[in-house]
């Protein structure tokens, strides 16, 4: 049964420097509060894994927390670049960043293999792209029936996966509704699964065919309302598309980025403080 603890303790106990960490969630339920707590606790040398790095990885990378990035699309969706990711790749600021780069289909196959504890995933993919020339981890296997060559990717099995979810019950079962991306696979692929949730309930209703992570797959849970903002929680609050657009000028320059992070993340002690700090600025 998972342990229940505050987010600060969850990160302090379970995510040491140097960990491979996946904060998954495809646009939806991105665990921003957990990412900010990694920054507050000054984590270093992380191997960050995520299909779509999004703003939360822009922030972690810009604050120097990451050594390596496994990903398949690193932009601000519908807005443009992740400027901190670009600055790290183009100018090694604040430190160099190794890239382990895939297509979505490749990374999805790698997550699935990880969840199944198979050593690799396969797909008909990467044909005609230069990615395999730059990523020696993209290889191939021959079908023992047809002789066809199929692309392969090594399984993803991070030390820690962190998800945000709508709710958990007292037994530690975690329920998710809405777009799930590769959250389920990332959860089951990890050695340690940490979850922040919007709501704690006594007992979840039977999920039937809905998405549920049974308690024995979960290591620890922190109650963290609003923990996905500026991403969203289906049924509870919408994506803050206005903030996603406002992030572009904030992150464009090192100085404005650093000032924002110092004021709102490092200058606050927890996620409620972070949200209050943003409200104060906006008021």
């Amino acid at each position: 049964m998972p342990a229940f603890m505050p987010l600060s303790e969850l990160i302090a106990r379970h995510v040491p420097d140097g960990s491979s960490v996946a904060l998954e969630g495809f646009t939806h339920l991105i665990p921003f509060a957990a990412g900010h707590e990694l920054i507050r606790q000054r984590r270093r040398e992380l191997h960050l894994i995520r299909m779509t790095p999004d703003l939360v990885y822009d922030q972690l990378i810009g604050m120097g927390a990451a050594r390596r990035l496994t990903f398949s699309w690193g932009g601000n969706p519908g807005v443009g670049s992740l400027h901190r990711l670009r600055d790290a790749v183009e100018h090694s600021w604040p430190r160099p960043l190794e890239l382990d780069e895939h297509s979505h289909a490749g990374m999805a196959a790698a997550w699935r293999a990880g969840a199944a504890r198979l050593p690799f995933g396969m797909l008909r993919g990467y044909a005609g792209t230069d990615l395999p020339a730059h990523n020696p981890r993209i290889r191939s296997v021959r079908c023992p029936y047809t002789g066809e060559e199929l692309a392969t990717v090594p399984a993803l099995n991070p030390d820690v996966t962190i998800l945000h979810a709508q709710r958990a019950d007292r037994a530690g079962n975690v329920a998710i509704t809405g777009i799930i991306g590769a959250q389920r696979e990332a959860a089951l692929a990890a050695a340690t699964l940490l979850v922040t949730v919007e709501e704690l309930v006594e007992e979840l209703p039977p999920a039937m065919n809905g998405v549920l992570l049974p308690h024995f797959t979960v290591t620890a849970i922190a109650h963290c309302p609003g923990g996905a903002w500026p991403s969203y929680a289906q049924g509870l609050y919408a994506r803050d598309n206005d903030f996603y657009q406002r992030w572009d000028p904030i992150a464009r320059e090192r100085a404005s980025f650093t000032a924002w992070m110092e004021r709102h993340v490092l200058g606050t002690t927890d996620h409620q403080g972070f949200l209050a700090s943003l409200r104060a600025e906006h008021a």
Partner: protein
Amino acid sequence: MSDCSRDELMTVAAARLLWDGCVCFVGIGLPGTACNLARLTHAPRLVLIYESGTIGARPAVLPLSIGDGELAATATCVVPLPDIFSDYLQAGRVDVGFLGAAQIDRHGHLNTTVIGPYDHPQVRLPGAGGAPEIAAHARQLFVVMKATPRSFVPALDFHTSAGSPRAVITDFGILRPQPGSGELALAALFPGATVAEARAAVGWPLLVPDTMETVPLPSSHELRTLRELQARTAEAHRRPVALPVQE
């Protein structure tokens, strides 16, 4: 409709490529506007698949990302992302893939990865996302992107996807592959656009046929639908989000 912009002409021309009932994998950016315009005009039964896992979404406003809650709430169903790539795209269930890109070459190959060398990029772009497998597995591929000599290039800095688009919709008109060689050639111009303009915007010697179609202007219904969609969208993306958190 002589007051419509090139952006609007592009979007309407792109939308017209889709047919009612077709299953369309919607790439990030410009394609989303065109696909939803088609759904709201001549193709009400168009099935939109977003890589986030939504099938059959009918959003009232354009999503900013390709995973906004509006997509999940209006979708026929929401499936895990790995299923989208394996059981729908790779399995050949997608009629049309619709992509944008930063660079395209004369064969329609796309670059969304880097400008400059991969290890020392001048500009690091977002990367592949779904593009390589959309280009490979959709039954046909359309591309929509604005043309400049820096985007329509003789040689890509990086091959992200190796599709053979049936049409490239750009801001002077439409390119289509030549039979045989597959080289993209000018196929149609927007009203007001010229061959000289097209040649200037493309970074390789553009093939131009003797006769040239002109893309019909948007109808008032198309244009009004597009503008209303974009107005609703802009309003929605500025709307403050109320968190379920105590003040």
